[in-house]
């Protein structure tokens, strides 16, 4: 279980996250929606430890992470699919996956590699090609599989549907629901609010660095403000 309490973070002297709290349990999806620049990516980076925080606490399964290095947080079961996919473009697809298993044992890596290839056969077909040669959708699959290679208990996903065709978006969200069934705790950042809310257990709306609204996915789907601002209909 991931819990964030009263988190603040700044770039230089400008504070971009204020008093952010959230909680997500195993087998649940927390959707985080908000406009451009609201601070969603900064929040995920802070949770992963690649963005410093000024106040607040982050705990994973009850243990504080504040003083734990980013790389060590992966070992503890926290993974992130970063914004813009960030695959290692000049390396093969298989190497990308193997690097995803950096913190895992060799036997787990082999099993997980197998699983990734079975789930997304296209990755197997192209396993020796450079990741940079994949289409956006395929890179997204790769980024998700790479994050799963560390066998996380909590996964943070930053706009996994960005730039994908509707068909691929369906595939990605189907994969996310599968992860939920497997018992992962998922934080899902999305601009594509309608799909995100429809699969989310809980949801929060972020505006200018604050969480301004929270509820279940269903509640927020019905919320008038959310409908106007994020679902594009009144």
């Amino acid at each position: 279980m991931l819990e964030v309490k009263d988190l603040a973070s700044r770039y230089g002297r400008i504070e971009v996250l204020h008093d952010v709290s959230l909680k997500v349990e195993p087998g649940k999806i927390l959707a985080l929606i908000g406009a451009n620049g609201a601070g969603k990516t900064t929040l995920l980076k802070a949770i992963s430890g690649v963005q410093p925080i000024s106040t607040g606490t982050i705990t994973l399964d009850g243990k504080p992470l504040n003083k734990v290095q980013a790389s060590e947080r992966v070992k503890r079961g926290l993974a992130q699919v970063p914004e813009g996919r960030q695959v290692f473009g000049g390396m093969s697809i298989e190497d990308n996956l193997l690097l995803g298993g950096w913190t895992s044992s060799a036997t787990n890596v082999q099993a997980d590699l197998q699983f990734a290839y079975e789930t997304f056969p296209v990755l197997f077909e192209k396993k020796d090609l450079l990741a940079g040669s994949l289409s956006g959708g395929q890179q997204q699959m790769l980024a998700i599989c790479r994050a799963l290679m560390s066998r996380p208990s909590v996964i943070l996903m930053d706009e996994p549907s960005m730039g994908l065709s509707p068909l691929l978006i369906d595939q990605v969200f189907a994969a996310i629901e599968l992860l939920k069934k497997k018992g992962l705790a998922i934080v899902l950042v999305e601009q594509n609010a309608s799909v995100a809310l429809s699969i989310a257990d809980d949801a929060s709306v972020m505006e200018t660095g604050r969480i301004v609204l929270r509820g279940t996915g269903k509640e927020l789907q019905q919320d008038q403000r959310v409908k106007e601002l994020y679902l594009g209909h009144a």
Partner: protein
Amino acid sequence: MLSDLVQYAASGVTVGAIYALIALGFTLIYNSTHVANFAQGDFAMLGAMTTVFVAAAGVPVVAAGILGILAAACAGLLLYRAAISFAKNSSVLGLIVLTIGAAIFLKGVAQIVFDKRFHSLPAWFGTEPIKVLDATIQPQSFVVLAGAAVIVFALVVFTKKTLIGKGILAISQNQLAATLVGINVTTIVTLAFVISAAIGGTAGILATPITLTSYDAGTLLSLKGFAAAMLGGMGSPMGAVIGGLVLGLVEAFGGGLISSAYKDAFAFLAILVVLALRPQGLVGSFVRERV
């Protein structure tokens, strides 16, 4: 005439192999930090001088050589852990200046700990020249070439086949993503510095029977290694090897056919020409970073 050409080619390739090893060190560190490490030649000097003095104290040459490589590796470790990693937030230019400072520091230390004279090491297989097409080639040339080939091969296998080697590549491509898969960037970059320094030290030891060494031999080696890396394409290991060999050959042929007084000038002229025509270097490619 033919024998002259063979002679130039042989000495060009030998010197080029040394430049290639120094350039490889540049490449490894550049790839993991984007810093050009101008103490790279001084690692070579340190490896060679340590070997000379330890051997002179009665230690068998092979053991002395291992100590020399270790000394260089320690210097690499210290350069990163005691200097570069503390200044992580300064600009790349600032870090480069820091490496120049480290080079001057190493030179000063070597002057005090060792001395200011030139030194040599015994050639591994004697100095009886080998005749090839009327040219005479030092047996040590073959040692240098074989040593360089082994190091290049080992480095390629390491970076392409082992997970840790892939980790170094991953850091060079995307530090954020590397951190997010659980790679401890500081540890891996430290490793890159240690390996670079060890390669530099080895290069210095291999070259010493031919080129001699002294406390200030590192400066020119750094410049040549940097030039070779630029010539081949900064960041490409293959480029480092090709750049080193081309640089060595240009120097040898330019020096032999035109004038040895301008040997170094030819090398830098060659770089100017190549970089004007192909700014990415002979085999380098522009890598666009995805944002």
